[in-house]
C-alpha cells in the first residue's frame, strides 16, 4: 500500500520535472525568436527610414540620411565588394589576418608580461612597495596616446600595433595576477607547508593555481583590450588592417564602410570571446560552473 503511494508520488515528481524541462525549452526558443525579431525589426526600420520621404536623389530629405547614417543594404553591398574585389589596402582576408595577428601577439605578450610581473610583485612586498606608485601613475595615464609614440618608434608595420595592444593588456593582467597571489588563502598555504611543501612546491601547487583563476577572469577583458589596441594602432597609422579600413572609409565619408568594418570587428570579438571561454573551461575544470558572463 505504502509502496504504491510512494511510486505514484515519485512518478508525479518525475512528471513535474518533465513539465518544467519542457517549459524551459519552450522559453529558450521564445527568447531566441524574440532576439531575432528585435534584430530584424531594427534593421528593417533602419532600411525603411533611408527609403521613405525622399525627394529625388537628395538623401538629406529621407527620414534617415544614409549619407551620414548608412544603410543596411549599402553595408551588405560594401561587404560583398570587399569580399569580391578586396579593399583599397589589399584583399579582405589579409586585413583581417593582420588585425588578428596583432591582437593575438599583443594578447600573448601582454598577458605573459602581466603574469610574470604580477606574480613577482605579489611575492616580493619590497618590490611592490617601491614599484607601486609608478605602476599606479602609468595606469592612470590614457595609454592610447602611446600609440602615436609607438608609430614614431616602431613604424607603420604590425609591431607598433602589437606594442599598443601589449600595453593595454599588460595592466589588466598584471593587476589580476598581483591580486591573485596576494589573496591566496592562508590556510591553503599553511596546509601545503604542513604536508611538507618546499617554497617551490608551495608556489607551483598553491600560489599559481590560486592566482590562475584571477588571471583567467582577466583574460576576457584583456582580449577585448588587445583588439582595441590593434584597431586604434591601425587607425593612427598602418598599411593594412581593419582599423585602416575604418580610417579609409572615414576619409571618404563612406558611412557604410565604417559600419561594415564594425560588423567584422564584432564577429571577431565574439569568436575571440568564445575561444577564451573554452580555454577557461579547460584550465579551471576544478571550479563549479558559475555563470560569470552577463553579456550573453
Amino acid at each position, binding site marked *: 500500500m505504502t509502496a504504491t503511494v510512494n511510486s505514484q508520488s515519485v512518478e508525479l515528481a518525475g512528471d513535474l520535472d518533465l513539465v518544467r524541462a519542457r517549459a524551459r525549452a519552450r522559453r529558450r526558443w521564445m527568447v531566441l525568436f524574440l532576439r531575432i525579431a528585435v534584430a530584424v525589426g531594427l534593421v528593417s526600420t533602419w532600411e525603411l527610414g533611408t527609403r521613405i520621404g525622399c525627394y529625388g536623389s537628395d538623401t538629406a530629405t529621407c527620414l534617415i540620411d544614409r549619407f551620414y547614417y548608412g544603410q543596411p543594404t549599402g553595408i551588405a553591398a560594401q561587404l560583398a565588394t570587399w569580399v569580391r574585389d578586396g579593399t583599397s589596402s589589399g584583399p579582405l582576408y589579409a586585413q583581417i589576418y593582420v588585425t588578428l595577428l596583432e591582437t593575438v601577439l599583443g594578447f600573448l605578450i601582454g598577458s605573459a608580461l602581466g603574469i610574470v610581473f604580477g606574480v613577482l610583485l605579489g611575492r616580493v612586498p619590497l618590490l611592490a612597495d617601491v614599484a607601486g606608485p609608478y605602476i599606479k601613475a602609468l595606469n592612470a595615464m590614457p595609454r592610447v596616446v602611446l600609440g602615436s609614440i609607438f608609430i614614431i618608434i616602431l613604424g607603420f608595420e604590425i609591431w607598433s600595433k602589437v606594442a599598443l595592444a601589449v600595453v593595454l593588456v599588460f595592466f589588466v593582467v598584471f593587476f589580476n595576477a598581483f591580486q591573485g597571489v596576494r589573496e591566496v588563502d592562508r590556510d591553503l598555504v*599553511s596546509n601545503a607547508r604542513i*604536508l611538507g611543501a618546499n617554497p617551490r612546491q608551495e608556489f607551483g601547487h598553491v600560489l599559481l*593555481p590560486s592566482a*590562475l583563476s584571477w588571471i583567467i577572469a582577466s583574460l576576457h577583458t584583456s582580449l577585448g583590450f588587445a583588439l582595441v589596441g590593434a584597431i586604434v594602432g591601425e587607425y593612427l597609422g598602418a598599411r593594412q588592417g581593419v582599423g585602416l579600413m575604418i580610417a579609409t572609409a572615414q576619409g571618404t565619408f563612406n558611412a557604410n564602410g565604417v559600419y561594415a568594418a564594425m560588423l567584422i570587428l564584432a564577429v571577431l570579438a565574439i569568436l575571440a570571446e568564445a575561444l577564451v571561454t573554452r580555454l577557461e573551461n579547460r584550465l*579551471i575544470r576544478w571550479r563549479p560552473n558559475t555563470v560569470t558572463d552577463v553579456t550573453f
Partner: protein
Amino acid sequence: MQQPGSQALSTDAAIVLRNVSKRFVSPEGKAFTALEGVDLTVAPGEFCAVVGPTGCGKSTTLALISGLEPPSRGEVSVLGRQVKGVQHSVGYMFQRDAVFPWKTVLDNVAAGPRFRGMGGGEATKRARDWIARVGLSGFEHHYPHQLSGGMRKRVALAQTLITEPRILLMDEPFSALDVQTRALMENELLDLWAATGASVVFVTHDLEEAVALSDRVVVITAGPGTVKAIYPVNLPRPRNIQEIRFEPEFMRIYEEIWSGLRDEVLVSYERAKHLLAS
C-alpha cells in the same frame, strides 16, 4: 581534577608547552595577547581534547605546536625537540576547509607524500589505499566542490593521515557537520587513531565531543587564554560514540567539566555583548 602544571614534565612527552604566551601585533602597533602562560603536556599516544569559549586561543595553541607560528614567550617542544618551524612528524587538520580546490581527491590525498619526495606511482597507490580507508572509493577523480562537507572532511583526514604523523592536531574538524555524519566520523577517527598510536590534540567547542573522544580534557579560559583545569576521562576503550553518551560515568565527567567551563563561556559571552553594545 588536576591543577595545571601539576603533571610532571617528563622528557619523553610528545608535546610540551612551557609558560607559553602569544601576542599578535596589529599593523597599527597594537598588541593583542591571545595566550598567556600556557603549560601543557601531552603524552605519547594520548588523545587530548581542548575546549574553551570562542576566541580563547585554541587555534593559536595548535599553530604554535605545528610550528606555523612562533611563541612570543616560553617554549614549545615536540617529541623532545624545541619547535623551530614546520615538522614532518606533525599532521594538522585546519578549522576551515583546507583541501586544495584545484586538485582531485586523489591528488589531494597524495599531496603530502609527493611534497616529501615520494614517486608518483607509489604515492598514488598509498593515496588510493587511504581514500578507501576513509570510505571515499569511487570519488578519486572528483574535485572538492563536487563533494559534500562531510566528504571534504574525509579527504582532509586522509590527506593528513597518509603522512603518518606522530602528532595529530585537529581544529574543530567536525563542527560543520550534521549530527549523524559527525558521530560516524568520530567513530572512524577513533578507529584510525587506535591503529596509528599518534598523540592527538583535538580542539572543539563541543564538550560532549571532547569527553567522548579523549583521555583528557583541557579547559582554556576566556582570552587571554590560559589553562584553567585539566580533567582525566577514564572511560574504557574502544568506545562507541553514540552509546558512550548514556554511560553514568560519562555524564558525571561531563557535569564536572561543564561547571568549570560554564564560567568561561559566560565571561566570553558577556564580553561579546559589551563589544556589540559599545
